[in-house]
C-alpha cells in the first residue's frame, strides 16, 4: 500500500516546513505570548493583592476613625458633664456669695438703723429734757412766786432728804 509508505520527498518538505515553523514560532511567537500573558497574570494578581491590601487598610482606617469618633464623643460627654457641674458650682457659689452679701448688707443696714435710732432717741430725749426743764422752770416760777411757798418747798425737800437718809 503506497498510502502507508512514507515518501522521502514529502518527508523532506515536511521536515523543512515544520522545522521553519517550529524555529520561528518557538523562538519568536510562543515565548513572547506566554511571557506577555504571564506578565498580565502577575499584574492582575498584584493588582488584586494590592486592592485587597488597600481594602484592609481602609477597613483599618475606618475602624480607627470610628474609635477616634467614639473617643471624641465620650470626651465631649465628659466635658459637657464637667461644664454642667462647673456651672452648677458657679451658680451655687454665686448664690451663696449673693446671700452672704445680702446678709452683710442687711446687717449693715440694721446697724445703721440702730445707730440712727439711738441718735434720734438721744436727740428726742435731750429735746424732751430741755422741754421738761423749761416746763419745770415755768411751773416752778409760777408756783414759787412768793416766799412762803418757797420756804414750804424747801422744808419739804429737806424732809424728803432726811427720810431718804434715814
Amino acid at each position, binding site marked *: 500500500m503506497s498510502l502507508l509508505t512514507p*515518501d522521502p520527498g514529502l518527508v523532506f*518538505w515536511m521536515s523543512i516546513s*515544520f522545522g*521553519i*515553523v517550529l524555529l520561528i514560532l518557538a523562538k*519568536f*511567537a*510562543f515565548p513572547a505570548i506566554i*511571557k506577555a500573558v504571564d506578565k498580565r497574570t502577575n499584574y492582575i494578581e498584584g493588582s488584586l493583592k494590592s486592592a485587597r491590601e488597600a481594602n484592609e487598610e481602609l477597613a483599618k482606617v475606618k475602624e480607627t476613625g470610628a474609635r477616634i469618633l467614639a473617643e471624641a464623643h465620650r470626651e465631649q460627654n465628659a466635658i459637657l458633664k464637667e461644664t454642667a457641674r462647673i456651672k452648677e458650682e458657679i451658680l451655687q457659689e454665686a448664690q451663696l456669695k449673693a446671700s452672704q452679701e445680702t446678709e452683710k448688707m442687711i446687717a449693715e443696714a440694721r446697724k445703721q438703723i440702730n445707730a440712727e435710732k439711738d441718735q434720734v432717741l438721744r436727740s428726742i430725749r435731750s429735746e424732751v429734757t430741755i422741754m421738761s426743764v423749761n416746763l419745770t422752770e415755768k411751773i416752778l416760777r409760777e408756783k414759787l412766786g412768793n416766799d412762803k411757798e418757797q420756804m414750804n418747798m424747801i422744808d419739804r425737800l429737806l424732809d424728803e432728804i432726811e427720810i431718804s437718809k434715814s
Partner: protein
Amino acid sequence: MRQVLFLIVLFTFSIANYATGGENQDLNVSKTTVEEELNVKELILEHLADSYEWHLFNTKKNSVTIHLPVILYSKTSGWNIFLSSKLHNNDNNYKGFGIATEGKYKGKIVETSSSGEEVRPFDLSITKNAASLLLSSLILILIILGVSQSIKRDPLKPKKGFAGIMEMFIFMIVDEVIKPAIGEDYKRYSPYLLTLFFFIFFNNLLGLFPLFPGGANVTGNISVTLVLAIGTFLVINLTGSKKYYKDILWPDTPVWLKVPFPLMQIIELVGTLTKPFALMIRLFANIMAGHAIVLGLTSLVFVTVSLGSAINASMSVVSVIFTVFIDFVELLVAFIQAYVFTLLSSVFIGLAREEEPKNDKKELALEKLTEPVNHLEIKKEI
C-alpha cells in the same frame, strides 16, 4: 499583503492551464457521466494519495489546475527540474520520466530505464501536499506572529477578538495539557508542543476546507505524521532524565532478564519506538479516514445516478445530510487529534523527565502493607 504576494509567486511557478484541462487524467467529477461508471475507490485513493498537480476546480469546459514543480534526481540524468504539466503530453513521458499508472509506484513519477524497468528516481518534487504544507506553514507563521505581536503590544490589556481566542487556545493547551503532564519544567517544552498543536490543528482544518488553499490530505499523509512523530521522539529522547535512560538500559528486573541476552533492553527500546509510532498512525489514520468518509458519502450522489432519478435524488439528500454531519464530526476530530497528539507528546515527555523517587519502591510497598496492620493494632489497644 505578504500572503497575496506568496500566492502570486505560487501561481507563477505553476502555470494554471485552462487550455489543456480537457486532456487531464484527473478522475474528477465532470468525468462521471451515466455512460462511464465512477470508480469510487480510485477517486478516494487518488485524493488520499499525493499528486503532482493541484486541481482547483472545474469550469464547464476545463479543469483549473496548478501544476507544481517536479524536482528529481536520477542516477542516469542527474537533477531534473520541470513543471508537472510537461508530463501530460501525448505519451505521458518527459525526458524518460512518467507517472506510473500501475504497479508498486502507481501515481508516482518513475523513470523507465534502458532495460525497460521502472525505476523510482529520488523525488523531491513539490507535490500537492508539499505545496499545501509550505503554504499552510506560511499562513500559520503569519497568524501566530500576528497574534503574538498584538499581545506583545499591550500585554496588560486582555485581548478581544481573534487574538483573544488564540490566547485562550494557547493557554488552554498550556494550562490543561502541558503543565499537568510535564510539571514544573513545562516552560522549556511549551513552545515545541504549542507549535505541534497549532501545526496539526491548522493543517487538519485546512484539509477540511475543500477550496484552495485547503483540500489537501496533509495530516492524513503518513510522511507528515512521520516527521511529527520523529520530532516528538527526538524531544523525548534528547531531554530524558537519568532515570529514563537507566530504565531503558538497566531496568529494575531480575538480572537474568538483562544478561546475557538483553531481553528487557530490547523490550524497552521497542517501547520507546512504539510511542511515536502510535502517534504517527493515530493521526494519519484518523484524518485519512475522515477524508475517505467525506469523499465516499459525496460519491453516493454520483454512484446512484445509474439507479434512476428517484433513488438518485433521495440518495443525494441523504448524502448531503451525512456529509454535513461527518464534516462537523471531522471538525471535532481535527481538534481532538491535534489535542491528543499534543497531550500524548507532553505525557511522554513528562514520563521521560521523571526523576528517581526519593523512597525506594519496595519501601513504599512495605509501608503500604504495614499501615493497615498498625491501625488494627491501635484499635485493639483502644
